C-alpha cells in the first residue's frame, strides 16, 4: 500500500518528462506577453489567474490587436472548454472527495497532468488516496509554469524587437496540434478553420477568432455525419 506522499511523488515523476515542453512554452509565453506590450505584473497575473498556456497567449494577442474584452474572454472559454472533457473523465475517480478537496484539485487540472494521471487512476482505481497522483502532477506543472513565465518576462524585456518573436505564437500552436495532422478528418477541419480565419481576419472586433472555429466545428459535424 502506497502512502499519500509516495503517490504524490509518482505523479511528480510521471509528469516530469512533460516539463521539457512546459517550461520553454512558459518562457515563450512570458516573453510574448512583454513583446505584445503588456506590463510584467499583468502578464504574470494571467499565469496565476487563468493558468492555461494557449488561452493566455490568445487572450493577450487578441487584446493587444484591439479585440473587445468580450471576444478575448469568449476565446479563452472556447479554448479551455476541453477541460470539461477532462473533468467528465476525472469525476469518476474524485467522486468520494469532500467539496473543498474537489475545488482545490480542480485548479490544477491541465493537459499534461490529466494525460499522465488519468492513466494511473485507471490502473489504480481502487487504491486509497489515488487522487494524490493528480495533485502531484498538477502542482509540479503549476509551479514550473509560474517560474517559467517569470523567466520569460525577464527575457522578453531584453530581447530586441527585430527578432520578430511574435512569430513564435503560430509556431507554438503548430507544435501543439502537430499530432492531429496525422488524422485526415482533423486535417480537413484544420484547413477549413485556418482558411476561414484568414478570410474573416478583418471582420469587426477580431470576431474571426469565434467565426472560424464555428465553421470548423460545422465541418467536423458534417464529417461525423458522413462517417456514420
Amino acid at each position, binding site marked *: 500500500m502506497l502512502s499519500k506522499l509516495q503517490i504524490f511523488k509518482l505523479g511528480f515523476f510521471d509528469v516530469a518528462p512533460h516539463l521539457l515542453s512546459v517550461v520553454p512554452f512558459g518562457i515563450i509565453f512570458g516573453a510574448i506577453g512583454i513583446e505584445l506590450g503588456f506590463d510584467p505584473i*499583468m502578464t504574470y497575473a494571467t499565469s496565476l489567474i487563468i493558468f492555461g498556456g494557449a488561452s493566455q497567449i490568445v487572450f493577450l494577442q487578441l487584446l493587444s490587436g484591439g479585440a473587445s*474584452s468580450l471576444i478575448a474572454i469568449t476565446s479563452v472559454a472556447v479554448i*479551455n472548454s476541453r477541460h470539461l472533457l477532462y473533468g467528465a473523465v476525472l469525476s469518476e475517480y474524485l467522486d468520494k472527495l469532500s467539496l473543498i478537496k*474537489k475545488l482545490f484539485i480542480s485548479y490544477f487540472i491541465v493537459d499534461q497532468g490529466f494525460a499522465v494521471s488519468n492513466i494511473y487512476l485507471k490502473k489504480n482505481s481502487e487504491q486509497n488516496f489515488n487522487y494524490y497522483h493528480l495533485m502531484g502532477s498538477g502542482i509540479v506543472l503549476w509551479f514550473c509554469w509560474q517560474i517559467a513565465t517569470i523567466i520569460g518576462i525577464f527575457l522578453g524585456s531584453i530581447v530586441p524587437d527585430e527578432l520578430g518573436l511574435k*512569430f513564435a505564437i*503560430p509556431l507554438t500552436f503548430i*507544435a501543439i496540434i502537430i499530432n492531429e495532422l496525422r488524422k485526415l478528418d482533423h486535417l480537413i477541419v484544420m484547413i477549413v478553420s485556418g482558411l476561414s480565419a*484568414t478570410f474573416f481576419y478583418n471582420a469587426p472586433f477580431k470576431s474571426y477568432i469565434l467565426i472560424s472555429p464555428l465553421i470548423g*466545428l460545422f465541418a467536423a459535424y458534417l464529417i461525423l455525419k458522413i462517417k456514420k
Partner: protein
Amino acid sequence: MTWTSIFIAGLITYFTRMGMITLIDKDIFSENFRKILNYVPSVVFPSIIFPGVLLDDYGSLVTILDPKIYGALTAITVGYFSRNVILTIISGLASYWLLIFVL
C-alpha cells in the same frame, strides 16, 4: 478593464475545470457533443496559425516569398517527423531568422 477581463477569463477557465467534477452530472453530455469537443483544438489553433503566417501586421496577404511561410513549413515538417514540441518551435524560429538575417 484588462484586469477585469483577466479575472473573468480566469473564473470561466476555473469553471471549465471544476464544473464537471463538482456541479454538473457528467451524463448531460451526449456522445455526439463529446465527439465534437474533441475537435476543439483542431479548429481553434489553426484559426491563429493561418493568419499568423499568411497575413502581415496590417492584415494583408503576404507574398509566397515571405520568411514566415518557410518558417511554418519547416516547423510542420520537423514536428511531423520528430513529434517534439520544442524542436518544432526552435526549427521554425531558426529557419525564419536564417531567412531574415542571413539570406
